């Protein structure tokens, strides 16, 4: 509120002497915001396009937007020094308590967690081995994975110098364990599995080898943050910069205490282990803690209903265009398990494909990133709502309508 406005407002009221006195002191308290320097628009300065994210939490699209609690944590902890070992230990202890698990730590994302977890299984607390990673003189350490679970992110394992052994089915897995085996990795969001989570854990226990599950993008539901450690996995990772809305360059690694301690030895601030370049700073560690706390305390049902009403809002607007039909699509997960809006139309009427609309949204102003989904073998426009700021819901609705209308 500007000072001018206050004075104007007060002009409507009878003025007493006391009030005049107060008004003078009031000038002081209003002068602060006035003296604030003009906001620097760094996107403009750099010529970087702001993007409205009507998709999911993609890394290349800067992940997600940090919660106000996270920003508060970053700002409020930025003016003091702290010991990073102590910070990681104490934040880890609190998070472990919150996650009902032995130990936890903040990493610079889920890929970092995969690497640190693998390193931990290879080195334990052995300083010599920590130094040698990833250049093993003899046989390479082995990590067991299901063939159908191989993915881009498993380079985090080979980056430690380990080799991935592909298996199919429990029998093959059972036989794959040998003296070089250090870990087994389960990719939670894989399309199909030849070994169930339960069998996977059981086989690892039988051979006394740690099991690791990568659940990077697999909240909501919030219950997943507890599910896998209860199932018996020794280590679990979640991304911090997706739906938990912590810093994008942060993630969670939690599980067995001895393994988390070994993972820390392979990480910054230790001088030169394999994880040294995967730095998280003090503010990110606090930010990740604040994000997790806020996520666990959030009213998830309310949040879900809010998403549904956003979908309704956009659907109604889009359906004003002839032949356009919308329906709520709930991604079954485990990754990105939340609702979005599927839009279809008669391409005889609206002469555009889903890809055309997607491209027009992205090229327009403001730039909007949506996805193209697949429904019964047909391409549909998939409009995400979970990463929209409240003020962006109508912007997206109007742009979608405008583009579709234009193509009639």
């Amino acid at each position, binding site marked *: 509120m500007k000072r001018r406005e206050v004075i104007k407002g007060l002009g409507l009221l009878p003025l007493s002497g006391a009030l005049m006195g107060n008004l003078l002191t009031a000038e002081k308290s*209003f002068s602060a915001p006035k003296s604030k320097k003009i906001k620097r628009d*760094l996107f403009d300065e750099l010529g970087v396009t702001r*993007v409205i994210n009507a998709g999911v939490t993609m890394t290349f699209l800067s992940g997600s*937007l940090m919660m*106000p609690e996270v920003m508060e944590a970053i*700002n409020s902890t930025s003016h*003091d020094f702290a010991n990073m070992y102590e910070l990681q230990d104490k934040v880890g202890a609190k998070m472990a308590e919150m996650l009902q698990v032995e130990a936890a730590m903040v990493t610079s994302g889920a890929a970092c967690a995969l690497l640190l977890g693998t390193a931990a299984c290879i080195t334990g607390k052995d300083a010599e081995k920590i130094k040698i990673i990833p250049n093993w003189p003899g046989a390479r350490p082995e990590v067991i994975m299901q063939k159908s679970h191989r993915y881009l992110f498993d380079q985090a394992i080979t980056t430690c110098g380990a080799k991935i052994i592909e298996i199919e089915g429990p029998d093959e897995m059972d036989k794959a364990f040998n003296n070089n085996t250090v870990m087994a990795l389960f990719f939670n969001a894989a399309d199909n599995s030849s070994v169930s989570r339960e069998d996977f854990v059981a086989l690892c226990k039988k051979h006394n080898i740690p099991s690791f599950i990568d659940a990077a993008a697999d909240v909501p539901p919030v219950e997943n943050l507890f599910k896998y450690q209860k199932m018996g996995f020794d280590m679990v990772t979640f991304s911090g910069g997706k739906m938990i809305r912590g810093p994008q360059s942060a993630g969670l690694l939690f599980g067995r205490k001895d393994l988390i301690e070994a993972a820390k030895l392979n990480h910054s601030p230790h001088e030169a282990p394999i*994880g040294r370049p995967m730095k998280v700073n003090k503010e990110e560690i606090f930010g990740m*803690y604040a994000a997790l706390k806020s996520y666990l305390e959030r009213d998830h049902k309310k949040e879900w209903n809010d998403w549904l009403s956003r979908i309704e809002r956009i659907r109604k607007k889009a359906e004003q265009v002839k032949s356009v039909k919308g329906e709520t699509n709930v991604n079954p997960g485990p990754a990105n398990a939340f609702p979005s809006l599927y839009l279809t139309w008669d391409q005889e009427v609206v002469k555009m494909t889903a890809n055309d609309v997607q491209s027009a949204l992205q090229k327009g102003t403001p730039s909007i990133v949506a996805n193209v989904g697949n429904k019964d073998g047909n391409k549909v426009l998939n409009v995400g709502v979970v990463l929209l700021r409240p003020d962006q819901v109508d912007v997206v609705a109007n742009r979608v309508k405008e583009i579709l209308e234009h193509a009639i």
Partner: protein
Amino acid sequence: MKRRDLIKAVSLIPFSGGIFTSKSSFAKNPLPKQDLFKELGVRTFINARGTITFMSGSLMHDYVLDAINSTSKDFCMLEELQDKVGEKIAAMTHAEAAMVTSGAFSALSLGMAGILTGLDPKKAEQLPHLSGTGMKSEVIIQKKHQIHYNQALTNCGVKLVWVETPDDVDRAVNENTASMHFLGSGAVEGTIMHEEWLALARKHNLPASIDMAANVPPVSNLWAFNDMGFSYVALSGGKAIRGPQSAGVLMGKKDIIAAARLSASPNAATIGRGMKVNKEEIIGMYVAIDRYLKQDHEKEWKDWENRVATIAKAAESVNGVTTKSYVPPIADHTPTLDISWDTDKIHLTGTGLLEALRNGNPSIEAYGGGKNSITVSPWMMRPDQVKIVTGRIKEELKKASS
């Protein structure tokens, strides 16, 4: 708060003193103030030691925080952001190209990866396993340049080949040699210096890299090594420049930086995927360098010297204390103070004094801590903390005086 609401509020309250002096009633949606250090039981301290990673590096300048806050409400494409921030940083540092990394160690690894893979994403997927890939596998480096941080290179799968003389270099070069690496803080007498190292690299047609993580100030080092012609330069962002602690810069030749980016996030199948920097850190790093270049370095230096003088004077006022101020030549190149004392007069060890400072209130971290001395670097103190440190050192020395 809208004007309408204010009027409503005002009309409900009898006019007495107070309503306008209360700033908080006008504050816009304040979040509950939290003290996370307290909540977690984490000790904060005054940093009288310097920019040390395990001590959380340095404190970000307010303009870096402003940048983080103001860019946190919008999405953007990270590749576009790296492109554009990279261009700006390159222009400021006389480099052909630049990128923001998650620290200097990350910059060293990514630059090395870039040299090994070139622009071939298939090769990036094969790192760090070089054998049978056609990628080169050896890096030449001077014996005196041996530090832990060279592991940033071996993490890419290369082997370090140690040399001492130019002749050693000539003999070491072979068909597997990928590059020649130089440690900025290792440029001391009796070693091959920057220019000669670069001449040798040119002679053998090899790229040359330099690790200069903590070698700013002087500010001119931001461009000196690019001017000299190093192929890539690794710089820490969270030290003197006071950007985010988890950020750094890789700068140098265009083709190498482009290749390095293949191995960095947001690309997925890479050795650098775990070395994430987020949007806010990338922009924060840009703003930090921009402001660092514009700041009055002479004034800052004078201020550090004054701090050293203030602390020295107070310490020396205690009988038996002597001080020596100096500037470390390369890394952590800032005014520094050694405080030592006659243990016959002051019954205290250096370690004892460090402990007393650490356990005092507020906690203070200094270093050194020999039999009868400690070392203080005052450049990472907030202005209001100089007096506290000065007082505490004097107090402890006096207390132990006979």
